[in-house]
């Protein structure tokens, strides 16, 4: 069985797979890869099953050295990747035994996905190898000196392709599509149009539990406390001081702040790649859902 050593872990490198959907009634969130599309593509490029565990690398700085030759693919964020020479993103790449694969600092987007052929073989918890950073469930974040085993989550051969042409994550304003949430009536009539018309900025205090936004204050029409209710990733909660937070994949399964709007499924992956300071605009999704 192949394995690799963590030479440098970077600010935060997590094991992630498809997560734990369906356990929210027991207080367990879905967790899983934040940018699902990028994780899926990385697995596909090395012939893994779609649910194989990958590494989610925040910002960069990961260096790993394999015992044996290993097929890898890197997706998500863009920036320098090296193993001897430069490694192309979105390309199946064979890293020879003993060579160090280095993921540099992300220049576009903020979360890289590194798939290794066979998947990461950490111990599953509740049928998932995802690290839930809020509930502290699943494999611990990678640390320097860790030895990590590669598994056997293989679906087929490494596809014979040179490169998948994928656009880099956007640098400018990111358009996030939303639909109405359950508590729009808790806000002033201005709040809804203010949300859709304002230029928002991604706060540096954003993580897998939530993307905090800086911008105008969304005034409430009602004060008082809302009994806690179920939440999902993408729900836009507004705290009593009028600041919106888009819930991420590790958010609590229930919450007591009113939800003004909910990000559509198709826009969720883009949340994972928002960089601190990056502008965000909301668009109302039209058509039947």
């Amino acid at each position, binding site marked *: 069985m192949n394995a690799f050593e963590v030479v440098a872990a970077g600010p935060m490198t997590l094991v992630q797979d498809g997560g734990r*959907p*369906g*356990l*929210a*009634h*027991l*207080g*367990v969130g879905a967790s899983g890869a934040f940018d699902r599309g990028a994780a899926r593509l990385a697995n596909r490029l090395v012939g893994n099953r779609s649910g194989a565990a990958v590494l989610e690398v925040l910002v960069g700085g990961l260096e790993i050295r394999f015992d044996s030759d290993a097929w890898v693919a890197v997706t998500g964020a863009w920036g320098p990747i090296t193993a001897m020479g430069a490694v192309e993103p979105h390309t199946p790449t064979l890293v020879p035994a003993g060579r160090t694969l280095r993921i540099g600092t992300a220049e576009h987007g903020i979360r890289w996905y590194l798939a290794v052929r066979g998947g990461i073989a950490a111990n599953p*918890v*509740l049928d998932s190898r995802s690290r839930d950073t809020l*509930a502290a*469930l699943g494999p611990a974040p990678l640390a320097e000196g860790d030895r990590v085993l590669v598994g056997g989550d293989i679906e087929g051969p490494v596809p014979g392709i040179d490169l998948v042409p994928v656009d880099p994550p956007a640098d400018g304003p990111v358009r996030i599509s*939303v*639909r*109405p*949430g*359950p*508590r729009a009536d808790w806000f002033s009539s201005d709040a809804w149009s203010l949300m859709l018309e304002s230029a928002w900025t991604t706060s540096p205090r954003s993580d897998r539990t939530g993307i905090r936004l800086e911008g105008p204050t969304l005034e409430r029409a009602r004060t008082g406390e809302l*009994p*806690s*209710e*179920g*939440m*999902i990733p*993408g*729900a836009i909660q507004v705290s009593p001081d009028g600041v919106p937070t888009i819930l991420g994949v590790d958010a*609590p*399964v*229930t919450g007591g702040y009113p*939800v003004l*709007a*909910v*990000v*559509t*499924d198709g826009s969720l992956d883009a949340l994972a790649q928002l960089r601190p300071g990056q502008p965000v605009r909301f668009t109302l*999704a039209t058509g039947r*859902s």
Partner: protein
Amino acid sequence: MRILPFGDRAVLAEYDSLSATIGAYRALSASTPRGLVELVPAARTVLVRVDPQVLPLDAARRWLLSVRPGDELDGPLPTTVTIAVTYDGEDLDDAARLLGITVDELIARHTGTEWTCAFVGFAPGFAYLTSASDPLVVPRRSTSRPAVPAGSVGLAGEFTGVYPRESPGGWQLIGRTDAVLWDATKDFPARISPGDLVRFTAVDR
């Protein structure tokens, strides 16, 4: 019941009371359609999360309207969980004083009533238990403890509950149990699920 929008893959059903919510959750759980991802009960609501490719939101709304509480009574009876408690919590005297009763009366009422798990939240396996017949309503502590040990039994608002793991917490602690409420290595990791009935028994101090 009101059905509120919740984006493109969920709707929120809202009820008038905690007991109506528990009843609706039990009935909904007993008749889940294909394409339902999960039901998340809370104090006044049940969040209905769907795969809209299989169960479109309109169909989920129709399903919510078609299920009547009581429909599930033909099904299996709710599970009853018994938890042995040593009533020696740090806030036991305060809680009794807040309720205007003696410690012995508090223990008699906590063990004498049947509790229902309304929902699980705050942390994996943390069950919010309520009693329709004899709730013990006390406010949360004015200051939260940074570390409440696993197995601590507490009261807060209209709820009683057991901390499944060590965590910060502001509930009034009345006792402790050796029962394991949460074990992530098990197929059924939570000892108490929404809709379950719970009885507490007193262990000699």
